[in-house]
């Protein structure tokens, strides 16, 4: 945890320095920004914003977009083996939605002056992260259900407050994404329910998946509040609305009765209702494992990144072809005659 604390201090110091510099350069606009955030107004792409606010949003939105794209892999792993045509259709639609979410989020991030290409390059170079959860393998069909219920459930708990985030394009992307995510989450729950109520072998498969995905799902909320590098500043800027621990507790409270309804247990003997606090107590998270996964030492880190890099590299000739074609036929759409080009459109 020492590394996180050091990082946190460095980040906070850098943030404060940037902030002081921004405010010194443009005190009027800095004051207007602060007032807009305080009044819960939305910050829009053309508005002035502190450089550290911009950098923090790019980091968070890129990581979010990357998570959607890498997150396709563990589920796509089961598309060709889905056990019924109905389930196969649901899974294909879900993986397609995830690619779409990635596209929304890259577009939203681009409003801050970066580009999808640049962000993907950083992902491929290991310079930007994606959610630690996708470094775990999907070993059985039930994992598809556990991901829907727990991973999407944790994502929703995290993301619903982002619909009120201070940065307009991010908030609007999240409204669309959360609608689809809650649909996926219900489908995952329903998949697990079918297994839990199925044959003994299916029930066992469901329980095993929940046992493997429970703790990693709790880790999706990030490090504990006292060790969270970006939390304080993000909350002050209203990028983030609740602390990691607060959201994690909320998630546990939601999951406990759902697990009961599923007829499955959560792999934590310390979960019990705390009458006094009006919430569930639960066991300690293995933060060493979390740090290891973040450092690249999780079960699938190398595999996930390698597949992403390979898809990108092997697709380079396709992207080159599309770009070359667009340059030759400056109106864009293949098959168009090129006679309707408007001035200014001819640069592909």
């Amino acid at each position, binding site marked *: 945890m020492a590394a996180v604390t050091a990082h946190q201090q460095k980040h906070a110091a850098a943030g404060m320095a940037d902030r002081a510099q921004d405010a010194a350069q443009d005190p009027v606009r800095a004051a207007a920004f602060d007032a807009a955030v305080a009044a819960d107004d939305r910050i829009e792409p053309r508005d002035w914003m502190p450089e550290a606010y911009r950098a923090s949003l790019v980091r968070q939105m890129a990581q979010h977009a990357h998570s959607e*794209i890498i997150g*396709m*892999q563990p589920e*796509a792993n089961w*598309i*060709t*083996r*889905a*056990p*019924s*045509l*109905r*389930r*196969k*259709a649901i899974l*294909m*639609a879900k*993986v*397609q939605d995830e*690619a*779409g979410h*990635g*596209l929304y989020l*890259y577009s939203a991030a681009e409003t801050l002056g970066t580009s*999808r290409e640049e962000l993907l390059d950083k992902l491929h170079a290991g310079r930007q992260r994606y959610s630690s959860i996708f470094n775990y393998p999907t070993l059985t*069909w039930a994992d598809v259900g556990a991901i829907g219920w727990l991973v999407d459930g944790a994502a929703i708990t995290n993301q619903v407050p982002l619909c009120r985030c201070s940065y307009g394009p991010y908030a609007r992307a999240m409204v669309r994404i959360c609608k689809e995510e809650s649909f996926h989450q219900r489908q995952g729950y329903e*998949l697990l329910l*079918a*297994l839990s109520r*199925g*044959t003994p*072998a*299916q029930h066992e498969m469901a329980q095993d998946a929940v046992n493997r995905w429970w703790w990693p799902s709790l880790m999706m909320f990030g490090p504990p509040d006292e060790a969270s590098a970006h939390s304080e500043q993000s909350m002050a800027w209203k990028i983030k609305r609740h602390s990691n621990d607060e959201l994690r507790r909320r998630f546990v409270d939601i999951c406990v009765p759902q697990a009961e309804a599923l007829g499955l247990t959560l792999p934590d003997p310390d979960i019990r209702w705390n009458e006094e606090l009006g919430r569930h107590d639960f066991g300690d998270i293995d933060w060493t494992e979390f740090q290891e996964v973040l450092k690249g030492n999780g079960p699938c880190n190398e595999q996930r990144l390698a*597949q992403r890099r*390979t*898809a*990108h590299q*092997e*697709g*380079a*000739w*396709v*992207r*080159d*072809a*599309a*770009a*070359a*074609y667009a340059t*030759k*036929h400056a109106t864009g*759409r*293949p*098959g168009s005659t090129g006679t309707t080009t408007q001035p200014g459109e001819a640069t592909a």
Partner: protein
Amino acid sequence: MTAALALGDDALVLSHRLGEWAGHAPVLEEEVALANIALDLLGQARVLLSLVGDEDELAYLREERAFRNVQLVEQPNGDFAHTIARQLFFSVYQHLLYERLAAGDGTFADLAAKAVKEVAYHRDHAEQWTLRLGGGTAESHERMQRGLDALWRFTGELFQPVEGTGVESIGVDWQALRAEWLAAVTDVVERATLTVPTGRQSGAWQAGAGRQGLHTESFGKMIAEMQHLHRSHPGASW
């Protein structure tokens, strides 16, 4: 055997192949597009197979020799150009066929009327990529030509109604369909500055083999993967 099974198997098997692209596409927009096409085809397969019996029993419990899809759709994905060539050949065929079925008053009219809208989009997607790859870079041009050449020998089967599948009796003039298909494919291929292959249009055994349940070797592996989990839990519901 019925025509619904033959056409349903075409859609089921091509959908499965396209599903293998998930997470491997050259650009995010193609992740969306290929999954979208796969999903449309799976929807069509489910309706068609349900006309014959239980969709899951038919998909998961038949063995290789009982599938009636054309060999074209079971061909492995290869590179992106190979996939696009397969998609071009099949979606032009499917579009022309479903237009005819939708215009008729047979069993498939309602289904085809809905599906033809989806297939028009698939065809447009395949044609646009054929033009881009053919007219893109030297490398993409060469790869696209290679894809067309490699798959050409599986195209003859599309127009060969085989006795016993019922495809011969669905009220389609197969010779006219073939001529129209060739004209449409030739038009796109030539606009893409590519060459229409001249080799034989018959597959491993003969044209019509897939419709008789004679498939190519990769198909058995494909259905082994597809059916494994379902077969491991006999009688379970999912």
